[in-house]
């Protein structure tokens, strides 16, 4: 394994080593700790039983399970769909956000939900402008359908998605006045990245999308308003339709690197930005797989880099990851409406990204006020009267987990929730938070303290 230089963490990495498959060894076995790391990154954490099961299996089998795309609808999926129908009747996107939290928590395919969240942040669309819950839900379905599938199909789908078109003011796009918003964001934020296209490309791409409209909340192609003339895009000629234009954008060599970079930041590390050569193998794989995601995701999640100390604790948990990690680890069921409100205060309300760039993520998640907010949130969850722990109370849950002392509680937290070993200072604080007699009466206080610790903010 290469040495760690925090200033140039990824510069010296050998891409071949980084993306080669991690293999367990005597020194580095596949164990509960590594399974927990995988579930923190590829899911929203896991229960103790799930981690136990994963650790008794292999990385390959665990990845198969996370990446499984089944055509059959699970019982949970059917119930979730029914729940969505009920929520949509209120036409309140905030309630739809609560529904999604419910899905993230209960789904048997957590990576699918996590990738849906990834794409939601990538193709950021805000309900404060779209307003219609049904349109937001339809976009969410589109993201979920392709979350582990084809990026190309997803980009084609999003270009005709009514919620996106309304959000980017492309609901009306006439040939006389091409709307450049969507065209610009397609290249800058969705596919290529800043500096990889010209202003002329934006104008030409906008011409390709003329006639793409939203009528009565549905996409419609208005041939009368489409500029059918030939366009030059990204150095290629003879582009006519919007579909052809999207294919041309995706064929640009910057596109797979851009997507690979976003995946790297989502799964491996918030910062520093990886060098292009480190991303190259992932970009090549995306093209080789015809933009299908499963292969590249398996490669990232099962890589040497993923399980190396370089990637450990290199991400700051987003508010959703932070709270759902808690809920999953402690098998908590609670008032999800209140949770959604708190997540809004912490800066991550689903369906309400701050702008078209989505959430900044990384260090931006942590400010003095959001840190206090996180502490308050865990306090709210553990003290809420609707909160249940594996269907019972907190004390019974920890008894069931064989946690009967402060030392056992700290060890349990480390095994199930923390990415890094607890510092001496945090350990001391947790000890002091429990009563002098060493009893477990102040368990809730201890958990709140653990939630506010620096280690808990890292993934």
């Amino acid at each position: 394994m290469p040495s760690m230089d925090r200033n140039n963490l990824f510069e010296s990495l050998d891409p071949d080593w980084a993306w080669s498959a991690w293999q367990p060894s005597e020194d580095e076995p596949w164990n509960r700790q590594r399974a927990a790391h995988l579930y923190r990154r590829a899911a929203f954490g896991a229960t103790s039983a799930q981690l136990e099961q994963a650790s008794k299996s292999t990385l390959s089998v665990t990845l198969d399970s996370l990446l499984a795309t089944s055509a059959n609808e699970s019982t949970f999926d059917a119930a979730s769909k029914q729940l969505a129908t009920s929520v949509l009747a209120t036409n309140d996107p905030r309630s739809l956000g609560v529904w999604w939290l419910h899905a993230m928590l209960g789904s048997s395919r957590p990576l699918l939900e996590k990738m849906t969240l990834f794409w939601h942040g990538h193709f950021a669309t805000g309900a404060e402008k779209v307003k219609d819950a049904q349109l937001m839900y339809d976009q969410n379905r589109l993201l979920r359908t392709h979350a582990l599938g084809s990026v190309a199909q997803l980009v084609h789908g999003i270009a005709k998605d009514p919620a996106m078109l309304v959000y980017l003011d492309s609901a009306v796009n006439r040939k006389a006045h091409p709307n450049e918003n969507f065209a610009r964001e397609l290249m800058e934020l969705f596919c290529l990245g800043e500096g990889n296209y010209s202003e002329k490309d934006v104008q030409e791409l906008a011409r390709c999308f003329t006639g793409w409209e939203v009528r009565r909340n549905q996409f419609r192609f208005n041939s009368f308003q489409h500029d059918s003339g030939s366009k030059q895009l990204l150095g290629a000629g003879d582009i006519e339709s919007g579909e052809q234009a999207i294919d041309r954008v995706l064929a640009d060599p910057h596109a797979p690197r851009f997507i690979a970079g976003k995946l790297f930041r989502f799964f491996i590390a918030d910062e520093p930005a990886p060098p292009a050569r480190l991303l190259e193998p992932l970009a090549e794989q995306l093209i080789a797989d015809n933009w299908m995601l499963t292969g590249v995701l398996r490669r990232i999640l099962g890589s040497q880099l993923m399980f190396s100390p370089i990637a450990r604790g290199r991400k700051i948990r987003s508010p959703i990851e932070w709270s759902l990690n808690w809920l999953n680890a402690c098998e908590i069921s609670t008032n999800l409406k209140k949770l959604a409100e708190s997540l809004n205060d912490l800066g991550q309300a689903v369906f309400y990204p701050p702008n078209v760039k989505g959430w900044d993520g990384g260090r931006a998640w942590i400010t003095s006020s959001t840190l206090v907010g996180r502490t308050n949130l865990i306090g709210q969850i553990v003290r809420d009267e609707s909160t249940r722990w594996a269907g019972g109370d907190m004390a019974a849950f920890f008894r069931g987990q064989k946690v009967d002392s402060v030392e056992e509680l700290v060890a349990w937290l480390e095994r199930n929730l923390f990415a890094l070993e607890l510092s001496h200072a945090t350990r001391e604080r947790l000890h002091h938070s429990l009563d002098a007699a060493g009893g477990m009466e102040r368990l809730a206080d201890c958990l709140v303290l653990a939630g506010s610790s620096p280690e808990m903010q890292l993934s």
Partner: protein
Amino acid sequence: MRIYVSCIALTLACWLVLTSRSSCDAQTPSAADCLPATTMLYLEAAEAQSFVDLPLGRQLLANPLFQELWRGPEAMKLRGGITLAEIALGERVPAALVKVANHGAVLAVDSKTRGVVLLAHTQDKATCGQLLGKLVQLARTRDKNQPEGNSVKETNYRGQAAYEVNQVVMTSFDDWLLATNNSELAKTIVDNYRASAAQGLSAVPAFAASRDQLRADGPSKRLLWAWADLAELKSQGVASDLFKRPDENFVAELVLGGLLATVREAATVSAELTSQADHLRLSATMRDAASLKQPEYEFFFGKEAQGTAPVPVELDGGLFTLAAYRDVADLWRRAGDLFGQQTNDQLAVADATLTTLFSGKDFGEEILGAIEPGVQIVAAAQDFSDQSAPTPSIKLPAFALITKLREPDQMQPQLRRIFMSLVGFLNITGAMNQQPQLDVETLREGNGTYVLATYVPDKDRPADWAVPIQFNFSPTLAIVDEYAVLASTGTIARKIVHNLQAGAASADAAGAGPAGAVPSGAVPSGSAQASRLNTVLRLQGAPIAEALTSNREQMISQNMLEKGHTQEEAAREIDTLLRLAGLAHSLEVTLSVGPGVQLDADLRLNP
């Protein structure tokens, strides 16, 4: 052991508050004789046996749902507490409590000492002494396990042993058991008892007058009787929100303004809870209601408090009916006296806007002024069985506002025009927000005219999209004779029109009009002949339960999201709630005005 004693104390306290009788033997002083004249709150419960024998209680205990809940995990702690209490008492709780509160009990609050006292009139002197001894013994047993040691302090007042446990003073005299948080109050009560003369609360004229007004025992059985010195409560700052004028809330003033004004100004209030077969009735009376004659409350009570609610319209499948005397035009005119600056500013804006909407006619004077004071709001369940029409995902009941016009011939055409303008306005705003559009037709059926607006289904709308809430509505204006009905659906409008016509026909046959007459059965039993019904609210349990059941899936969804329950858990909880809702047969709340103001609530449970 702490739980053990607490459970017993709690159970005893709860039962004692809810049990006992109104008076004791004529030879011995009553609780009211013993309590100080400065008592500001007095609650008297009938003898315990009345509660044990209560048909409603037996009905509830025999109910399968109650039994299921009682056996469930939610009631486990309560069951455990009762078992412990029975072990401590050496007998079943009902039997023990009949001894403890054999002749009833009184809970009172004294304004001078701020003390709270509980007086239980036990079976006899011997039982009383044994009970006191047992309570003290229980406290001492508990103390053995406490690091603080003995917390029971024994004192003596005028030769009477008293015990202080955790700041609660307990003593007994004859067959009375006393518990209070104030020793001075305990001394006053003992002194008054020893004096054997009516010099306490019973000598207070307002209290005595309220006692004199107690209704004669008929078929009903009085369970609780309460009296409060409202003036003293106000001066003590108790329930200050209740005495505050809602001067910025137009709706609260319209619905409750007169009643709240009476509460603010009345010196005392008395209330009683009675039972009869499957009924439970709560009645509150304020005798000195100066607000009745105040001009600013004429909108609520009418001139010289002569306003009478219209006959409530009863519909098949009706959820509720609210019929009330309210002169909205008068309220609008007197808004300057009743509301603060903020509300008056809003009303001025609303007046200008509505005047424009109503074709330049002055909204307060000419539109509201054209409506008779009596108004009704009716709600009924909807039938969504018609497969050809879209069934909304959230199913709301239909509702309607019924008014009587002063000059029907002049008002009817104007109302039709205004209604059509309103539909046009809704269509324009709806189109801007991708909402469904309304189609309008005018129908004539019998001597009723209907302007019916119906939402047009969007055929292009994907089948798996939720059907919007708008499809609960087909806004309708119905005009028949002197009545104008503004309804959320055409179906309820038609039902109301038929009901009004049938009412008019039967009233004609009986020689009286359908409105303004006191509805039969709505006059509280025992009320003075001169009293008039100002407000009647009737709720029907079965249709309400049915309306809730039709939204079962929605409620389950909300439960899942709010409590994080699984679908099975949520379904179980919602189904229990729906079954509980089905226990209530009906609730009728009336406000009658006579020499004073009386509020009655009558609850009837299903067998």
